[in-house]
């Protein structure tokens, strides 16, 4: 473990640590563009220059490994002057179109110019012109004039996805990022190049021109797109609803987690939030009688659900929970099953098509909480429930979110089963062919509208936070189940997600001792 000093402060770091990372550990920022901890060292931007006490001139920190006895100075006059020069070189051909650039507000040219540049511009000659607004693929737009040629995106496609779509073409100040002939940026992780682009060269086609980034709010969350549980940030636009036609979720961004997803997320997860602000959202409870549809208040809907459940014998009732539900919701489902006295509880509905999987992040299981549902004891036989419903043995079914008419089951049989139910209750976020058949429809809050935890395929329990208010009258499922339980006379003390989690942690050995505080921001593994 080399010991060195940086700006006079001693530190010991693991062998192989470069000076940028060593300085970061001391809270010292060495400005840089091309360096990214997840990619190989390029050493091209030349911004991360620092002084070493024995070197005749500044050295790039990214390609210099910490060594025993090294004396590093990140803030000498010579280093400051070098940074100023490098900033000027980066900007002489830059279009300076910040007012119309999506990156403005989170652009490292802006940030570092204010911090390390602040020179008086001297460039009066014509700038080099390059292609603008070039779609590289379904998600990414290139403005080659804004590009500083740090090559992060090229290295990402070479080293992380191994797809190699991008290259740097031409030479000198005519160099530009581009696609190799015949290639499109269609790899499953293409959105990450926008995240790692330090400037406005690569922008997100879904996000661009929607909202200025300084109007965004941020909540820490977990992607619900598959069993990996990638750590993300949910960026929401609440203060300027007119900027994005009412769209509240502006974008999802990866959040670093050393063991789950490092710096990356897949495109499917990144762009899988459209349902949250979709017109198909369920926003109020509904009772359907024949063709007649009645909007209900919760004070009407909850007793209606309780009455319907009371009308049936325990073994006539089944609950079809979902691995898309949070642990807290699933524990509430289990409490409901116990209260009703039914053992007919399941969560596994086979998808119509098998999911893809790769060696990087993407899991075939497209549910965020299959492991949690297993651990919480909900793993019954869903196919048997559907068969018993069709046979008339089950008369009341509560479906949580599943679209059983678009699963791997024969749709005609599933349809017949649903139409034979005397009471069909559906709770979920969005209208579907199942909600259209349900006698009682209960609007559920989407994951970005509530707190909760999910357990990923490795057994890591992770928290997601509330980024938005629920749309309309929607409620988190644990809450609406809790209200039903209370109406049924059960002693329910849990009102918030955290209460439900406390209850399940007290009862289920895999979660023993876990609390929201102990899960923290990095998650916690279930007990084996």
């Amino acid at each position: 473990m080399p010991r060195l000093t940086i700006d006079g402060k001693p530190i010991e770091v693991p062998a192989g640590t470069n000076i940028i990372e060593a300085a970061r550990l001391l809270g010292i920022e060495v400005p840089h563009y091309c360096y990214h901890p997840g990619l190989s060292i390029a050493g091209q931007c030349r911004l991360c220059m620092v002084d070493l006490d024995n070197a005749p001139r500044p050295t790039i920190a990214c390609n210099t490994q910490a060594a025993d006895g090294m004396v590093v100075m990140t803030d000498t006059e010579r280093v400051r002057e070098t940074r100023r020069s490098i900033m000027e070189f980066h900007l002489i051909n830059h279009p300076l179109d910040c007012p119309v650039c999506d990156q403005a507000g989170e652009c490292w040219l802006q940030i570092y110019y204010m911090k390390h540049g602040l020179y008086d511009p001297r460039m009066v000659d014509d700038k080099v012109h390059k292609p603008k607004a070039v779609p590289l693929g379904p998600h990414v737009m290139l403005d080659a004039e804004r590009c500083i040629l740090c090559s992060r995106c090229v290295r990402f496609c070479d080293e992380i996805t191994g797809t190699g779509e991008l290259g740097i073409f031409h030479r000198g100040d005519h160099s530009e990022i581009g696609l190799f002939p015949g290639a499109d940026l269609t790899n499953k992780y293409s959105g990450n190049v926008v995240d790692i682009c330090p400037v406005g060269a690569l922008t997100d086609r879904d996000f661009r021109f929607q909202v200025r980034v300084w109007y965004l709010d941020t909540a820490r969350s977990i992607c619900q797109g598959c069993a990996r549980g990638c750590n993300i940030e949910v960026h929401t636009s609440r203060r300027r609803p007119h900027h994005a036609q009412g769209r509240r979720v502006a974008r999802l961004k990866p959040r670093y987690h050393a063991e789950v997803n490092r710096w990356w997320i897949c495109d499917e997860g990144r762009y899988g939030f459209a349902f949250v602000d979709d017109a198909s959202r369920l926003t109020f409870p509904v009772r359907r009688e024949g063709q007649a549809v009645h909007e209900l208040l919760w004070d009407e809907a909850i007793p209606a659900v309780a009455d319907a459940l009371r009308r049936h014998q325990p073994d006539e009732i089944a609950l079809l929970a979902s691995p898309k539900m949070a642990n807290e919701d699933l524990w509430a489902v289990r409490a409901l099953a116990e209260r009703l006295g039914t053992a007919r509880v399941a969560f596994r509905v086979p998808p119509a098509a098998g999911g893809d999987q790769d060696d990087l992040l993407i899991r075939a299981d497209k549910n965020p909480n299959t492991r949690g549902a297993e651990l919480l004891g909900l793993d019954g036989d869903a196919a048997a429930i559907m068969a018993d419903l069709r046979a008339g043995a089950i008369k009341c079914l509560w479906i949580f979110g599943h679209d059983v008419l678009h699963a791997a089951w024969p749709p005609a049989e599933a349809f017949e089963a649903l139409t034979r139910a005397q009471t069909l209750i559906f709770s979920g976020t969005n209208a579907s062919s199942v909600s259209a058949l349900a006698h009682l429809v209960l609007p559920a809050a989407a994951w970005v509208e509530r707190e909760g935890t999910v357990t990923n395929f490795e057994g890591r329990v992770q928290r997601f936070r509330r980024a938005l208010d629920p749309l309309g009258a929607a409620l988190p499922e644990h809450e609406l189940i809790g209200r039903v339980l209370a109406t049924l006379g059960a002693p329910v003390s849990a009102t918030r997600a955290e209460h439900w989690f406390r209850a399940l942690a007290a009862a289920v050995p895999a979660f023993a001792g876990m609390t929201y505080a102990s899960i923290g921001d990095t998650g916690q593994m279930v007990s084996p």
Partner: protein
Amino acid sequence: MTEKILTRNFGRADSHTLAVYRETGGYKALDKAAAMQPAAIVEEVKKSNLRGLGGAGFPTGMKWSFIPRGHTGPVYLVVNADEGEPGTFKDRYLLERDPHALIEGMIITARAIRSALGFVYIRGEYVEPWRRFSTAVREAYEAGYLGRGFDIVVHRGAGAYICGEETGLISSLEGLKGWPKLKPPFPAIKGAFGAPTIVNNVETLAHVPHIVNRGAEWFASLGTKTQGGTRIYSVSGRVKRPGIYETSVGITLRQLIYDEAGGVAGNGRLKAVVPGGSSAALLSADEIDVTMDVDGLKNVDSMIGSAGVIVFDETVSIPDALVVVARFYAHESCGQCTPCRESTGWIYKMARRIAEGHGRKEDLDTILDVAKRGAGTTICAFYDGAVGPYISYIEKFRGEFEALIPRA
């Protein structure tokens, strides 16, 4: 007059053939080298004071000794025949007129560094040199000099100056874009295809058989205290007899221009000289009493580089010359490092604007400041090479530039 060594056969018919090379003592050094331990060959070359003749002037024997001791995997010998420095055309003559000298030098060098495979990276525009050299390689295989523990692959470049930079050359050889590589690791540790690699210039290796044959002391005695031997100077521009001249590295620039190349052409009056390829700082007419070795030119803040001498008579416009040079560096910058990529283009635009009569009075200082700020901040020496002319052309002939700038 110095004995001609590298160019001794250049006047003979068919000097490029194996027959002529052998008749004149060729391939005799191989037997002697075969009897020497690799370390003894390295030691001999170190003692000879042979320095790299491609541009950087690094001591050749020392470079060879950087191959890690005890390394068991492949080691590659790469010959830099990408002669691209403006004003330099000596390697072309060697490849065309005495290709076997390079092959013999490579075989001996390969023994010294324990390499079984050599690559010769020939500048793409050098068609005839490539043909001649390829024929010579075929002859050497047929005669059994090659193919017995050492092979040569001939590779043609595609026309980029930066591929003459040793790590840019390696990238290009590997099939990548010709971008110089970060150092460390240096090529001798991790070079072509990840293996320890020695990159040497054509002329450097052509000297090796002679050093083995006649000894390090003999070679060292031909030159100066810090650099042994002769070298081939390419002399062009406004001289009466442009061409290549092999002399001791102890010759002065004045002797080279007036005694060898016949004196100044044009209007006959010397204005300035580029002493070592376009990247070398310009010398004014009163700075030519310097020895043409590595240290001689370092002492006047220029460099011998590739020994390409370009002579300007008084009719040459220095601002126009700077435009030509600046255009070259802007065109050839690989674009990898920001300072070089951006400022070569910027300086070219400013230099052109001044030459066209649209300069502003602050432009000259801006060019000087930009050049100095970028110097030493990049991966390779390309930009430092560009800075040499930017600064020296303006500082030594500032009045000529100022005369072109309109008064406000």
